[in-house]
């Protein structure tokens, strides 16, 4: 067992874990953060994507011990009093159906917008390539990310210049 201390959605957790324990299993089974689901076992689907120190990772491809000392943000910690612009946009653009990919898709999109605040449709499609959705055909996900990107750029400047 290895002792780890980490922050998940602004709450500190300290636990003894097996070195082989996956971060996603730590989140779900130890910390009770079940908002992050598991869709595969080969790191292809991206459903378990979270932010680790602000950068998106597939939490099935990280051991819990590797997250020692880090700050994890999951879908459950994204809203700050009100919905995050991506959450709002996914709702308004009908960018989810069953919703199983949604936590990972939104977290991956958050990282995409951090790196590229105003992506083109093509850049969004390429940027979310590591996250699979079986319901939507992706079109409304692209729209939602686009909508969230303009919401983000509009809000601070209050110019309304970005359509």
């Amino acid at each position, binding site marked *: 067992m290895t002792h780890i201390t980490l922050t998940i959605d602004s709450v500190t957790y300290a636990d003894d874990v097996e070195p082989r324990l996956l971060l996603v299993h730590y989140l*779900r089974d130890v910390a009770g953060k079940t908002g992050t689901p*598991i869709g595969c076992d080969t790191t292809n689907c991206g459903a378990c994507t979270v932010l680790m120190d602000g950068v998106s990772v597939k939490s099935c491809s990280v051991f819990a011990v590797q997250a020692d000392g880090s700050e994890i943000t999951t879908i459950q910690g994204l809203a700050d009093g009100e919905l995050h612009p991506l*959450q709002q946009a996914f709702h308004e653009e*009908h960018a*989810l159906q069953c919703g199983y990919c949604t936590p990972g898709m939104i977290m991956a999109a958050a990282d995409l917008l951090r790196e590229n605040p105003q992506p083109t449709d093509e850049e969004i499609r390429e940027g979310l390539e*590591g996250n699979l*959705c079986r319901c939507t055909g992706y079109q409304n*996900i692209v729209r939602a990310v686009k909508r969230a990107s303009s919401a983000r750029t509009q809000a601070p400047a209050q110019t309304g210049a970005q359509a």
Partner: protein
Amino acid sequence: MTTVAQESAAGAEVGKARARKEDARLITGQTNWTDNIVLPGMLHMAFLRSPAAHARITRVNTSAARAMPGVVAAFSGADFAAEQGSLPCAWPVTEDIVIPNHPPMAVEEVRYAGEAVACVIARDRYTAADALEAIEIDYDPLPPVLDMRSAIAEDSPKVHASAPSNRAYEWSFSNGDLDAAFRDAPVVIERNYVQQRLIPSALEPRAVVCAPNGDEFTLWSATQIPHILRLMLAVVTGIPEHNLRVIAPDVGGGFGSKLQVTAEEVLTLLAAKRLGRPVKWTESRSEGNLAVHHGRDQLQRVRVAADRDGRLRGLSVDLLADMGAYLMLVTPGVPLLGAFMFNGIYKMDAYSFRCTGVFTTKTPTDAYRGAGRPEATFAIERIMDELASELGVDPIELRKRNWIKHEEFPYTTIAGLTYDSGNYEAATAKACNLLGYDQLRKEQEQRRARGDAVQLGIGVSTYTEMCGLAPSRLLGQLLYAAGGWEHASVRMLPSGKVEVVTGSSAHGQGHETAWSQIVADALGVPFEDVRVLHGDTQVAPKGMDTYGSRSLVVGGMAVLSACTKVVAKAKVIASKLLEAPPEEVEFGGGVFRARGSEGAGKTIQDVAFATFAAHDLPDGVEPSLDADATVDPETFSFPHGTHLCAADVDTETGQVKIRSYVAVDDVGRVVNPLIVEGQVHGGIAQGVAQALYEEAAYDADGNLLTTTMADYLLPSAADMPTLVTDRTETPATTNPLGVKGVGEAGTIASTPAVVNAIVDALRPMGVRDVPMPCTPERVWQAIQGRADGVRAANAATGAEEAAR
């Protein structure tokens, strides 16, 4: 009096693009997936699965696994043999069908790689997985049976030694004089098409939790069918139905794959019963690719006879359908759902259909989005393009010469179905306009003339489908064991809020939103005041669940019907409150008024409270407005549409790029355009995936090669084009809202549109087919085949065998 249906036709909610109620929990991670469930004392189950496609089990020893720390129990198939029963097949399509015994855990023999052979139940999932490795098991190999054509040969090894052969059944249908249609026909075209095997791949893997409570059991499962599952678990295990409660909590997609009664559900239940503690099993994706039922897998021989002007005379279809190793819930019936659809939207004199269900040592097949209808639509839409090419006619022009004209509805087809409504002309005209069909044909001509390396192809698919499963009487005629009705209850709460209970258990479709819209209009209450309950047999005790694009056209009509009854009951009480005779009371916009009166009247909420108080009800009237309705559809639903795909095909590399894709669907009246568009997008993505990307591949020993998402290629956002979608609206005449099903339409329509585009691009090079999925290599191979593209293409999959 205004009827509820008319009322809702004028209502504000139906037709509105409401963002979904469901989203609130899904976008914030508050979702209740089965794998999230944690119960006191809960144990975790893991399965050992057969590594062989076909083998006799000679020894199983679980004692070492059982002795490991944290392991509570380990069982083999023999340990369950006395009580595990046989997994059900509810659709014995013929009197003499062979339905082999299907033990949830294999006892003596395994018949596909991935079949469960033993299990461990431990304190946590890691311990359970570790202990699987300590189970000792020996096999004597038996010959795998993999190719359908060889499987039905006299000398083939058998999948089931006790069965007479590998033929599960033969089912046929014919209408009209086929011989006359083909005799002296100026044009006859014959093609063999391969519907490759697909893995449905709902993003949520399956999961089951079972909690025992004395002789009662609560079972949570990631299932599409909590009601059917409850009944079937009772039948299989002998646990009385009233002692079982099944809950489908939030379910992460199904696409048919969770329309099943699975080995793992039965075994989790039996383990919980035996151990007296809650037991959870959660599937890994690699396990799921092996053990969740697969879809499609048909070899199709299609022949069409036509006059020189392109008029269709007859159509003959001969199928081999791969059942896999066992017949599961509706395995044999899937091809039958296509049997009535091969004629598509076309008129003809004669039609014959024959299907042989074949056992192989592969994962069982069953329903996958569209279930039978994508296969049928692919065949007819592909061969219509071939016929057009043969005749030198534009493929749309050929379709026009044969399709049912809008003024000819209702029209009874050669397959015996009566299509109630449709307007193929309107949908096609709109689609052509959106694509710029004529301009693209000109561009194609120029690029062909220039001999460009990248050629343009335009694919056409003018589809219809039968959905809204299904009229119970018809299901009975097809020997399906159950009915096709749906149930709903509407409960008026004292505060005027409304609870709607639906038997149609959603898993991503948006019923909570759509049903709220229907109820808001029918009762004249705010959209926000409606709560939809589903998916728990204790909360929603009656239902036939969700599949076959049935929810709205059957389940939604049950909701509407229950609302009608609520209004009728409320009217009697309102008449007392209004001091007017019932026949003088009118209802509209949620308010009861005496005819001709201008006053405030009584709102339905007023009546709900008055009913709750029950102080002043008419004599003999019960103090309740609540109503149930069970609706059996009078017929199927027939959505239709025209999908057009323009693809750039690189003749040097075989690379296909969809340049534009237009879908004009007619799903009748639309309750929520946002949801409809989402269904169309997602449906098209799965159809495109069949055309270009996906295939469950086996090696020569019967090992599945595509056990992971690294090997089985689901399209990502980068692989999908931006779709142009639009609608025409020809209301259904067979239900009061005029709605049609939409869940499967996109998948049914899109696959032939894409393949037709690829073949269209390559036709000048002699290519007449490319087997799916049309990977760059296969496209390139087809090009190399040149004048004999069909042979080259078929050689790539061994599909030549299909000709028999």
